[in-house]
């Protein structure tokens, strides 16, 4: 009994000691607060994780909530960086200037969505309107698009994913009136891009969507070209050698791509500047590719 007790005391002393060692001195840390786009939350978190490992004196706090909340937080000063998945509108910039905030724009990554089908599917390109009709359930046989006589099987992502939201906004868009169209109820929901690719690669009648970077080198999937309208040229997000078609994605010829931005208040300095430099460095852009977004080609493209 005595031995047990002394052991317990010893153990608790060790634990206490360990706990006191582990506790970092928080008041020495510089805190960077980031708020904004849900699409960018995971990417930002990854940047922050790596950056904080390199600079233990910096603590980065990231919250999502959407691009709108990011702008609001930048304006009222609760965030030092705003993650925004679109460019600020003129009205928003004017409003910011009224509040003595000068938004500075930094392109940090590219987001491109690829439409994928089974390689055995004879269809190579679709127009945006056709894609909308497919995913809203209006078209449900490949024959109506010039393919084989098969029912179209839709694959999508869970409704919390940023890709789901982006695809819904840009492709499904708003129908007559101002009501947002929804995905057809028959859309199968898969957990993550990997499961989605796996399903489409085995399903001759399947179609799905996901980050271009992830699918570019898959031989068991076909990436469709997209036409803006009936008369436009079909544009593929990848080139014939399976590399990304940077040019089309960059200048927006490929319809399903967008820049992701970080906005600061005025010219960034100190820790914020260093963090932004890290994001735009080769290492930061490597993380972009790892997270299935498209890295920027040149690392200094402040516009």
């Amino acid at each position, binding site marked *: 009994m005595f031995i047990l007790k002394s052991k317990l005391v010893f153990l608790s002393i060790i634990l206490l000691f360990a706990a006191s060692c582990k506790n970092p001195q928080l008041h020495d840390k510089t805190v960077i607060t980031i708020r904004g786009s849900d699409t960018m939350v995971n990417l930002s978190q990854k940047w922050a994780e790596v950056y904080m490992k390199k600079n233990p004196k910096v603590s980065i706090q990231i919250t999502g909530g959407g691009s709108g909340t990011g702008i609001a937080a930048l304006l009222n000063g609760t965030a030092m960086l705003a993650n925004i998945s679109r460019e600020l509108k003129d009205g928003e910039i004017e409003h910011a200037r009224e509040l003595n905030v000068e938004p500075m724009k930094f392109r940090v990554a590219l987001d491109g969505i690829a439409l994928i089908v089974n390689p055995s599917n004879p269809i190579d390109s679709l127009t945006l309107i056709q894609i909308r009709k497919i995913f809203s359930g209006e078209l449900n046989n490949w024959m109506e698009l010039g393919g084989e006589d098969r029912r179209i099987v839709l694959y999508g992502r869970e*409704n*919390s994913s940023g890709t789901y*939201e982006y695809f819904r906004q840009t492709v499904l868009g708003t129908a007559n009136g101002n009501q947002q169209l929804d995905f057809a109820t028959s859309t*199968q*929901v898969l957990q993550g891009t990997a*499961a989605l690719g796996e399903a489409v690669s085995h399903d001759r009648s399947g179609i799905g969507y996901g980050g271009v970077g992830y699918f570019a080198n898959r031989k068991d999937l076909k990436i469709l070209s997209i036409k803006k309208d009936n008369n436009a040229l079909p544009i593929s997000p990848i080139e014939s050698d399976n590399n990304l078609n940077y040019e089309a994605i960059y200048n927006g010829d490929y319809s399903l791509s967008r820049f992701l931005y970080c906005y600061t208040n005025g010219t960034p300095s100190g820790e914020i500047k260093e963090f932004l430099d890290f994001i735009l460095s080769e290492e930061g852009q490597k993380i972009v590719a790892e997270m299935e977004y498209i890295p920027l080609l040149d690392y200094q493209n402040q516009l």
Partner: protein
Amino acid sequence: MDTQSPYAKKISKRFRAKEKLIKYFFFLNGFVTVLLILLIFLFLLKESFAGYTDFNLSEYFFTEKTLADGSTEKIFEWFPTSEDQRLSIVPLILGTLLTAIPATIISTMLGVFVGIYLSEIAGSRLREILKPIIELFAGIPTVVLGFFMLVVGATYFQDVFFTTSRLNAILAAVGLSFIIIPIIATLTEEALRSIPLELRMASYSLGATKWQTISRVIIPTAVSGISAGIILGFGRAVGETMIVLMASGNAAELTLDVFRSVRTMTATIAAELGEVSAGSQHYFALFFIGTVLFIGTFLLNLIAELIINKMRKKIRF
């Protein structure tokens, strides 16, 4: 004697205190378990009805849409993040039933026969080998089963049944039956083995064959125990998450076709609760699904427990 008695008294006092301590310790453990379940249930109820103030409970079942000609139509759709939010759990309940019922049917067919074989036909040595193997099945991590159905099962199924949906309810049901067969088989075997030997002997002494004894004496006597096993298996199928999340395709369609993709209640909670913003109507709806699941599986377990108790009394002549 006289010198010993105070010591003995001391010992017995010490012993009594220890006995009491042990008693309270076990009581406390039991009490905490019950309390925890109660608290979980209260939390679920609280969260699922917290957003009730400006929200009609019927919207958890259907939304009414006004058509062009002025008439209204009931819509059963699950679109929690749409601008025009629809939170009907009806397709999800249907999805759960479409996976759990076929799974229970498949597992009953196989599980009951396995149970009968183990209890009545297999020799004792064979049983000692077979039983642990069958129970091992129940221990396969469900995520492994789900992955297996997604990668291997799905392709095989599509080749055999020519289904348009690669991932569908029946595929998930087959995956589920891997874990439900052992449940039903074990409980069937236990129900059969609890039947007194006298009944078998009496049957044989009247000239019945083994098959006659099994089919006319043993199974009718154990039928309530077997059905309790089936109900417990069904409860497990309703509550299982990972297999259905991976193999059912998760399309929240209002369908009765087991060859189409369905979305179950459990999979919906698993897929969406991680990302939902706390305090939104979507969040409360997910808790409402949780409450429905909790009550459903609780009732199933209760029924099974009652049946088993009743059977025990019946067998004890």
